[in-house]
């Protein structure tokens, strides 16, 4: 199979499900616009938090900020989406929905799509890296792909 790419997208057809940023999450989407993956981090205890919240669940501090992360992760699991649930994705199946564990902290999971690979390329625990995909003129998302350097530290 091939994965979804943005190359043949146009402004025609159904709109994607556009994220609705709010004051707590705006940093994340600002990061995407700047080509950076930013994850909320507690400035008091240092834990990362995803999804972003108004308080740190580890220490209840409200001193939180979005920080750029490495974009490196390991693949935890994936599924091949073959059934669309949103009009935008009707012509985009199949695609690979995946959960990856970001390198910054054990258990810091990020749900995404895998791109630039086939199903056969995937193994749990494999190193992956973020890549920003323009799905639509109004939507760029952080997808992941197999790490080009094989995950060298």
């Amino acid at each position, binding site marked *: 199979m091939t994965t979804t790419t943005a190359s043949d997208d146009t402004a025609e057809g159904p709109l994607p499900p556009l994220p609705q940023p*709010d004051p707590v999450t705006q940093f994340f989407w600002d990061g995407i616009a700047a080509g950076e993956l930013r994850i909320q981090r507690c400035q008091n205890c240092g834990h990362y938090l995803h999804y972003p919240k108004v308080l740190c669940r580890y220490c209840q501090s409200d001193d939180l900020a979005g920080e750029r992360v490495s974009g490196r992760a390991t693949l935890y699991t*994936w599924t091949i989406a073959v*059934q669309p649930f949103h009009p935008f994705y009707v012509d985009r199946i199949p695609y690979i929905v995946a959960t990856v564990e970001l390198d910054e902290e054990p258990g810091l999971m990020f*749900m995404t799509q895998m791109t630039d690979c086939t199903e056969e390329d995937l193994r749990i625990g494999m190193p992956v890296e973020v890549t920003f995909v323009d799905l639509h003129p109004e*939507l760029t998302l952080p997808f992941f792909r197999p790490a080009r350097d094989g995950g060298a530290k």
Partner: protein
Amino acid sequence: MSAGRRVAVVGCGYSHVGRNTGLSIDDHMIQATKAALADAGLTVADIDGITSVGTEPLNDAWLLGIEPVNWWATGMMAPAFSYSATQAIAAVASGFCDTALALRVIGQQPSSSALVKGAGANHPMTSMLHRAAGDRQFIVPFGAGSPVQWAGMFTNRYIQQYGATEEDFGHHVVTQRYHASMNDDAIFREPLTLDDYLAARYVSKPLRILDCDYPVDSGSAVIFTTEERARDLAQPVVLVESYALNAIRDLHFEVMSDMVHTAPVQTAKKLWEGTELTPADVDTAQLYDGFSIIVFQWLEALGFCGEGEAAAFVREGNTRLGGSLPVNTDGGACNVGRRHGANFCIESTRQLRGQSGERQVDGAEVAVWTNAVGPFSAGAILTKG
């Protein structure tokens, strides 16, 4: 045995379950309740507590003519019927009320073909699919957010971690259908073969359509009261030996850091802490099958087999009627239709009463039933009184 007054299951009932029945949610609630009252030999006047997932309990009580209501509870973000049931058990055990009605009422969700045309925005089980606000802004734009996708990821992680195969899930599906073939209440009763399973379409690979429960309109009702009262009623007595309700995080399955050991691990631990019984004492298990992988998680969490061994346990026939632990003897929600856990409580009760007919487990004295997976789950151990 759990603390407080000993609680019994005395009445079980369903509405006229089916696809697009044309009946209202209230109709399903009332039909199921009447069936449960008739089963128990009780009247509305005997009920003084009510809880529901899917309907508003005080509205239900008003429609049913229950007054006074001495106890009620509303379940919103809750593990479906098992929330209603465990709350009702606790309410009776504590003396908060004497006879409690636990409900799960479900309106069939829109089909996937309707969903992609924008339907479902107001249905409780699909409204989240198109809304990319709050936490959902990190899920929906990615083409995710349907339960089949987390279930696909849970299933795939299990396969990858333990070397299980898609055929292993097929053995489970074939076994459940065999049980359904002996259940007049089941919607799907034609036997399946492993080839039938493998030929079924994927919905979120490796998850197939036959791994998913079947959306229907349904109402399910179970009545709990004290052991003392139960002994005066017509039905054979079925007692609650142990019960548990647990959550391990908020409701985001997609970012769970361990998708193999989830809430059932905690629920199972609490269930066994509440009894001197052990897994070897259980005669039949009714394990929630919203997706096949959930049954595998429960088999391992409850200790019926070792970690990573559920696939082999199923493949070797243990879960089939006549095997060491018949599982989902009514056919499961994949075959009787979505009742969100209530059918497992009801089938357990019928097995312990000796009322399961052709699919009766000989000499069944101990049953365990469970519901949900991932962030939260619940269940109970029932015994023949």
